């Protein structure tokens, strides 16, 4: 039970998804090479399927779907306790994985629609306008929404939630994402005005955090009770499709359908989130028929393939596994060495061994994003090219072992969350004559040491994924995005061309101009790589055949909550 603790990287801990009509197609398309075109096609198909559903959602779903009566949606999930304690206490917003629970019980001002490239779409806010200077956002709220306890939903609740999230006393985890918010005001019951201190494109995503009822949580927070210890936290009230019924710590969370849900009452009357220790236990519970759906990794595919009554839905995701390179390390300073490392690593072995053959080689950080750019091939696996580059960089191949100034080269690879991945990478580099010393450990240990003092590291397993809006790789590659000011550029990678391209892309609103900027970024990053890019990992969802309505769209590891965006439409026969 090598517990994979993935605080940072949501993809391996995503909740289960249903496999809609496109489920079967996705199996064959994912096999194809990860070219841009395919992915785009993928999202259109999902969109068509979605239209069909669209029709249904207008009419209340429960009447003619008699079959879901008395049924129960049983979901296997890891970290159930973290969901409960953090999603309420931490005012979590996407992309935090713990906000998945929020999608069941709460709604946000806006909602990212995975079938439209995660475009923010109206949820509790009917519509919104943005001022020309992009600093003032005005939201008009729906008037037909009530809380689970029957109280009306008003702008006061939105103001209360945002102010509480910004209040440092509550230790809200989203405070950083909402840093740009200067003020939140409610001129009237149905309007909320948010003023920013500086333009911040991703603010719409941050603003879709779960909205909490002011009339319940407000008083307790005023009284100074920490959010985690409020009575409200023990039985939260939201506006979402399901209502909180009973929580059995460490075991399961029971939810009932919300009859007054503004998008129509959910078809399945009850939902249960069942806690599973790890993927093996999840596979066992699936095999025993106790849960309807759960995510598994490549390692469990053997256990669940051909399980009667279930189907394994493998869906591509934007998640990219990579090895972060310490560009300041003397051995790795020379960009040619870093390109060579990309050429030498055996990506197909990784895909076969780790993902059961179902991943795609990743040759650019911008894989699977909405920006239509051609993926470069300079980093592809090409042993001869890699060897040549190393020789150019002054490395000497002494009968199969690379040496620098007579010393055999040995690189240290640290891993905090994917030991098996690290072992395969180390082994494939050793096959090419570069000795790799592996140091695996616990996530918080390794990352803690990294954040404290990056200089001690050389290679470091990492995983990221640009959600549709590629801007999020800004914090990975931009020289300003160092650890100190909240970025993830751990090894202070600095490349002027990359910085210029990213800044340009961030300010550019015209789609074509942004694409051109990101293409320039991609080329510059490929010439001076900060990572050994490995492969994309699909998400494997094992789903009972009796469930219907899962429409994954393009799974983005960071937006795992969007696996549940249409849960109210699901049916179980």
């Amino acid at each position, binding site marked *: 039970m090598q517990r994979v603790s993935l605080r940072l990287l949501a993809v391996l801990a995503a909740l289960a998804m249903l496999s809609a009509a496109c489920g079967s197609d996705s199996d064959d398309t994912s096999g194809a090479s990860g070219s841009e075109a395919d992915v785009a096609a993928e999202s259109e198909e999902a969109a068509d399927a979605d239209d069909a559903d669209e029709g249904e959602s207008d009419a209340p779903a429960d009447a003619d779907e008699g079959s879901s009566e008395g049924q129960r949606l049983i979901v296997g999930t890891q970290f159930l306790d973290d969901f409960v304690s953090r999603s309420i206490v*931490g005012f979590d917003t996407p992309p935090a994985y713990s906000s998945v629970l929020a999608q069941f019980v709460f709604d946000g001002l806006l909602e990212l629609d995975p079938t439209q490239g995660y475009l923010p779409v109206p949820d509790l806010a009917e519509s919104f306008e943005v001022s020309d200077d992009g600093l003032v956002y005005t939201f008009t709220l729906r008037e037909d929404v009530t809380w689970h306890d029957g109280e009306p939903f008003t702008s006061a609740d939105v103001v209360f939630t945002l102010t509480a999230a910004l209040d440092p006393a509550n230790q809200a*985890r989203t405070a950083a994402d909402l840093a740009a918010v200067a003020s939140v005001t409610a001129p009237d019951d149905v309007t909320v005005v948010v003023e920013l201190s500086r333009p911040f494109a991703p603010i719409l995503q941050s603003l879709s955090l779960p909205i909490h009822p002011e009339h319940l949580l407000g008083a307790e927070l005023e009284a100074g009770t920490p959010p*985690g*210890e409020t009575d409200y936290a023990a039985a939260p009230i939201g506006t979402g499709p399901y209502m909180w019924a009973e929580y059995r*710590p*460490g075991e399961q969370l029971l939810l009932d359908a919300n009859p007054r849900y503004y998008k129509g009452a959910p078809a399945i009357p009850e939902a*249960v989130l069942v806690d599973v220790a790890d993927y093996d236990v999840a596979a066992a519970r699936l095999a025993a028929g106790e849960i309807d759906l759960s995510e598994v990794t490549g390692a469990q595919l053997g256990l669940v393939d051909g399980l009667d009554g279930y189907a394994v839905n493998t869906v591509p995701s934007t998640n990219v596994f990579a090895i972060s390179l310490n560009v300041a390390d003397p051995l790795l300073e020379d960009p040619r060495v870093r390109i060579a490392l990309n050429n030498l690593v055996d990506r197909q072995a990784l895909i076969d061994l780790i993902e059961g053959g179902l991943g795609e080689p990743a040759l650019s950080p911008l894989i699977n994003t909405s920006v239509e750019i051609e993926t470069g091939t300079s980093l592809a696996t090409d042993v001869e090219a890699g060897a040549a580059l190393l020789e150019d960089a002054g490395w000497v191949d002494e009968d199969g072992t690379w040496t620098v100034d007579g010393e055999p080269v040995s690189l240290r690879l640290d891993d905090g969350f994917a030991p098996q991945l690290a072992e395969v990478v180390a082994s494939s580099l050793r096959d090419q004559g570069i000795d790799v010393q592996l140091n695996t450990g616990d996530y918080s*240990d390794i*990352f803690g040491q990294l*954040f404290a003092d990056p200089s001690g590291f050389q290679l470091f397993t990492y995983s990221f994924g640009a959600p549709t809006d590629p801007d999020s790789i800004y914090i990975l590659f931009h020289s300003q995005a160092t650890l100190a000011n909240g970025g993830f550029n751990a090894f202070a990678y600095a490349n002027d061309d990359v910085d210029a391209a990213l800044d340009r892309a961030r300010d550019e609103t015209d789609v074509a101009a942004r694409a051109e900027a990101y293409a320039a970024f991609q080329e510059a990053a490929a010439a001076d790589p900060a990572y050994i890019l490995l492969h994309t990992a699909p998400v494997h969802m094992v789903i009972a055949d009796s469930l219907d309505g899962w429409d994954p769209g393009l799974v983005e590891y960071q937006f795992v909550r969007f696996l549940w965006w249409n849960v109210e439409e699901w049916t179980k026969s």
Partner: protein
Amino acid sequence: MTRYVLGRIATLVPMLLVVCALTFALLDLAPGDPALRIATQLANGPPDLSRVDELREELGLDDPLPVRFGRWLGGVVQGDFGRSAIDGSPVTERVLDALGPTLLLTGSGLLVSIVGGLVLGATVGLLPDRGPGRLARRAIMAMTGVSFVIPAFLVALGGLWLFAVVLGWFPAGGMSDPGEPRTIGATLEHLVLPAVILGIGTNLGVFTRLIAAGVEEQMDAEFVRNARSRSIGRRRIVSAHVVRTSIIPLIAQVGASMAYLVGGAYAVEVVFGWPGLGRMAVEAAQDQDVTVILAVTVISGLVVVAGNLLADVLLGVIDPRVRLARSDS
């Protein structure tokens, strides 16, 4: 007798204190800065350094060790185990929630080992050591030997897969079916498989051999030969004489095996998703959530101490030699 029990408690309590102090000091040696580790966890990414200092001050990490230990102990005595080092949520409630299921599992696991040990042990002890009897004895010994070769978690995983998944005789985890109310019946149904596996995985082997050796030896004891000469039937000899005398070493061994049992229960809890202290302890260790580890240590210590005490009292009840020795010492 009660004087003896009070005496035992008087010695056990300071012992627990010693263990708490040891664990507290141990955890304090953790390399790296707890505040940084917590901040990293909370921020779900690079921590902002101001937050780290706040946490350090909040948790009073700069106070000397004895002061912090005193504060923590003060809380524990009043039943407050403090706050989780990771997300600040109160630990006491979580630990007490988890105590019930752990006691249920540990208790029934012990029962399985004892009953299994008695039945199998007596059979081995009574079977003649020739012909088919010898074969049966060897088979039982080998079967009970499994717990010495295969670790508890493997026995648990194998058992879960075989009995819950392939054969489907038992539910595959948790204390109740998803969504169903936690009735006594449901809990029992969910308890059977983990308890049996815990029993087999930890102490069944030891107890069986103990009883087997005890019964075999007792069956040839002088007072049994005397009973035979007084024409007392074999069945009565076993029930009235041999069982009572051979159960005495078993009870003593139960006391000694409590620690091993509770440890084994943790592995079974993790595999069967049993919402007990084990799961909590394992996750706390991996998250390095110091407060939860301490809380679980204290509670597990209490469970083991209580087990020891119970075994001691039972020993006094069953073995007059012990009872008399204790009354005049």
